[in-house]
């Protein structure tokens, strides 16, 4: 298995001609209309776009959580679109990590139990060195015996990040990881995500609608109306905002611009 690939040349995730249609005939809605996109390994990429742009749908397909109407998704050499439910489950267990907006920790388990859950599912032993690295990087040492109910939102999300990274997945998908956090905790979580890419060599793909959050990424993929609308390398909040504004002006009929 690929431990981590700092070589940005080979993409970790690759989508070609990805199309998702909801409904039929006249009522058909193209959530995604032929998306071609690569996500570099060992990089932190943000997917951005306005509500309804298809960014969540794209992430679901990239992570093997949903199936596309047509097109292909490759995780490394594996074509996800050909796998059945059990194979997808095993793939998620071993090669993909998730960070959710609502943290989604199991309330009856301690932080430590939550973190090691994916390893237990896979039946593999905990690599104590890696566990310690994660716990120290995410500053969770003091919190390991606490249950989610006893943790702040930021702490819970850090536990969730540790859980996502514990199995050394090829890609971590983060869905609005700061959506339920105050700005300070949010900034903290984003720094941790960036550190896990830069210092631990992980690959993170994050969906967000917050330009400040996107600015933590190495690269921003902009999406609008189910199509890739552009990319921004080494983004800053300002450049991301500018990119979004450009999208907005594209959407707005010319005549109505004040």
């Amino acid at each position: 298995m690929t431990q981590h690939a700092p070589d940005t040349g080979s993409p970790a995730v690759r989508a070609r001609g990805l199309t998702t249609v909801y409904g039929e005939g006249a009522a058909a809605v193209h959530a995604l209309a032929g998306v071609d996109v690569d996500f570099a390994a060992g990089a932190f990429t943000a997917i951005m776009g306005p509500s309804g742009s298809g960014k969540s749908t794209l992430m679901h397909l990239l992570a093997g959580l949903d199936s596309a109407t047509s097109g292909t998704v490759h995780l490394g050499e594996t074509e996800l679109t050909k796998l059945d439910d059990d194979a997808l489950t095993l793939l998620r267990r071993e090669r993909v990590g998730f960070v959710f907006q609502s943290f989604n920790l199991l309330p009856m388990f301690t932080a430590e139990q939550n973190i090691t859950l994916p390893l237990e599912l896979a039946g593999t032993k905990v690599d104590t060195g890696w566990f310690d690295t994660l716990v120290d990087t995410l500053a969770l040492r003091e919190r390991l015996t606490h249950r989610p109910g006893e943790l702040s939102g930021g702490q819970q999300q850090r536990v969730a990040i540790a859980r996502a990274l514990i199995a050394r997945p090829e890609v971590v998908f983060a869905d609005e990881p700061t959506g339920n956090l105050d700005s300070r905790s949010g900034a903290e979580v984003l720094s941790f995500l960036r550190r896990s890419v830069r210092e631990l060599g992980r690959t993170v793909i994050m969906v967000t609608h917050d330009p400040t959050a996107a600015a933590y990424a190495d690269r921003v993929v902009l999406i609008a109306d189910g199509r890739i609308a552009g990319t921004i390398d080494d983004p800053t909040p300002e450049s991301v905002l500018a990119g979004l504004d450009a999208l907005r002006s594209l959407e707005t009929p010319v005549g109505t611009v004040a």
Partner: protein
Amino acid sequence: MRGFVLAQLRRGGGRLVAAGIAIALGSAFVAAALLGSDIVKQTAYNSVSASFAEADLVLTSGTGFSPETVESIGAVTGVEAVSPVQRLSFVVANEGRSDYAWASVTASDERLEPATVESGRLPGSEGELALTASSAKRLGLAVGDVLTVSGFDESEGTARTATLVGTLVDPTGFNYDAPTAVVTEALATDLASAIGVDLYAERALVVLEDARAASRVSNAIEAEVQGVNASTVDEAAHEAVVHFAGETDILTAFVLTFAGVALVVAAIVIANTFQVLVAQRAQMLALLRCVGATRSQVRRSVLIEAGAVGLVASAAGLGLGTLLAQTALWVVPALDLAVPAPSVVTLSAATVAWPLATGTAVTVLAALAPARLATRVAPLAALRPLELTPVRKSSRVRLVLALLGVVVGGGILALATFAALTFDQADPTLFVLAGIFGGAVSVTGVLIGAVYFVPGVARMLGSLAARAGGVPGKVAAANSVRNPRRTTATASALLIGAGLVTMMATGAATARGSLASLLDENFPVDVAVQAPWNASGVGSLTATQVAAVESTDGVARTEPVEAITVTVVAGGDTWSGETAYTASPEGIRAVSRTGAVELPEPGTTAVPAWMDVMEGETVTVTLGEKSVELVNDPDVMGQLWLAEEDLARLGGETVTSALWVSLEPDADPRDVTSNLRDTFTELSSTVGDPPAEILGAAVERAGYEEVIDTLLAIVVGLLGVAVVIALVGVANTLSLSVLERRRESATLRAIGLRKAQLRQMLAIEGVIIAVVGAALGAVLGIVYGWTGSALILGSSGGLRLAVPWRDLAIILAVAVAAGLLASVLPSRTATRTPPVAALAVD
């Protein structure tokens, strides 16, 4: 508010299905019990009124109906025909076979003849007789044959011959008074005077010229004929049914008790459901409170919802109960029971109202606590993000009540048991009643306090599951105690059912063991095969019979008992024709159950107690010319026993009057005795050996065990409904939890839990809850079963407390299977949740 309730029902109706099923089963039970009781009464009514033929009035008289009385009744205006119901009992015999007949005399008017002819005709002229078809068959008679009728003592010259001119339809099960023979008045009078009795009629039937004038004519009859009481057929039948009704009502009450248990269990399931629903709707309820709903409106909304569910479910239950009763009626004719059961169920106001009322009332009552919980939702909760409601700390009041119940109830129960065991001469009824009261109070205490120990036991079981079941086991174990109250309530429902079943099984096992020990004392051997007595005294078993017994499966060892007829002289009294027994002391010890049977030593004898001979007195036993003088050494066996040597000194030919048999330890005495019976019946028909009597502990025990097993089967069957409802409750709790944990399930799926593992997880959780309920129920059931047995059987001595291991194993197996089964539907819901749902924000 009504709009809100309707909307809730429409939206969450599915969540109430299980609660509805629970209550429907309970009220179906009530409906079936009431309808069954009605059917029995209706059947009895039909039976009785059939015996009145086409009569309009039934007359009774304390002094009977003489020909003069009958004549004066016939003279009353409006009476068209009158016939006294004259009865006589006698013996009918044919070729050595005889039967008892409870005859009536042919009615003077055919409309008043209750007997129905099956073949041939009713007797018309002197010396004719009709018998029921079954009686004629027993006697081997066909229409046209001649038979003997006589009084009970043939020697007194009462025998007459009669011709069988017809067979009658057999009377129905309930009509115990129905005639089994019809004779002409002449024959009846002749026979009655020969026997020396009067032909007596305590009833007369009347046909009216105009049936509508019944009340006027019955008044006229009562006025004109002294001592006669007239009632319409309907009144008379009702009066007769009241006689039955007493017994029917007790039976109905017995069955309804179990319906009550089922309803209590259903109430727990309902209370649980509404508790969960209120918790799940907390935010919506808070919103309602925010926009101005008062507490009482919120409470009412829950209660109205409960009432609606209760009413709908009870109506379904009534339908189900009616269907069950109707199915029974469809089946009855096929069983050929010869009872005039109605062909369709008749619903009365009571049989409709009670199931509906109890079902609805139980549902509303069960929802009271959840409704109160709903009023506690603060309006502010609407503004907070929805979090799982923290588990409330159990109140101090609950702890006090639980302890009070257990201590006080347990104390009364213990005292009653102690008293029953100590004062073994006293009537145990008082102790039993006190014990039932104490038991009920302590069980209530245990149930109130269940929340203190059920989660602990669930945790213990869970830790086993967590160790063995990997991640699914671990998550299931944690989930099963997440909501201690919910788990407790669900397990408690099962605890009640499993506990009662275990209690009954323990009681039955203990009764079986105790009876066995009592029987061991009274019957020294497993089986004694006794030759029948004949005209010359003690009978003898044939060599064929002895060989047959020895080769019967399950027979371990046999020992012959030799007998001879002797004359006994002791203390001036002489008894001739007594049977003296002897056997080999070693052989008898070997076959006896206890190995402690002592036969008289040479020179002594055991004289039966009724001869009233003192211990140590001299007894002379004579056979023909020879006699021996022996010292009396009384024995418990109640027969005259001699040592082999002493009997040999008398000479004479002994016969093998009995075989003492010991059985293989693993043989079922029921099988062995029934095999023995078959063997003897066969030998009697083939070789002509007279069938022997089969006695002994094993036979007695087989009889008792059959009664105990039948009673246990009936009670367990009746409790089955409560157990089924409790299992519906387990499924219900799982489904409600699954709905609540939608996002968690999705998260687990997203991070790598396979569908099969998710199913496994719910199955383990279901098994944990079910096994906790069943195991605790079993423990409590054993304790209460033992106490109950001590209360009831303690005074008879020989109490042997037993654990019904096999039944316990079955109960646990059922619990495991049920836990698995209960998880099937919730699993479907859970696995349908896509992993994407984990990303949803609500």
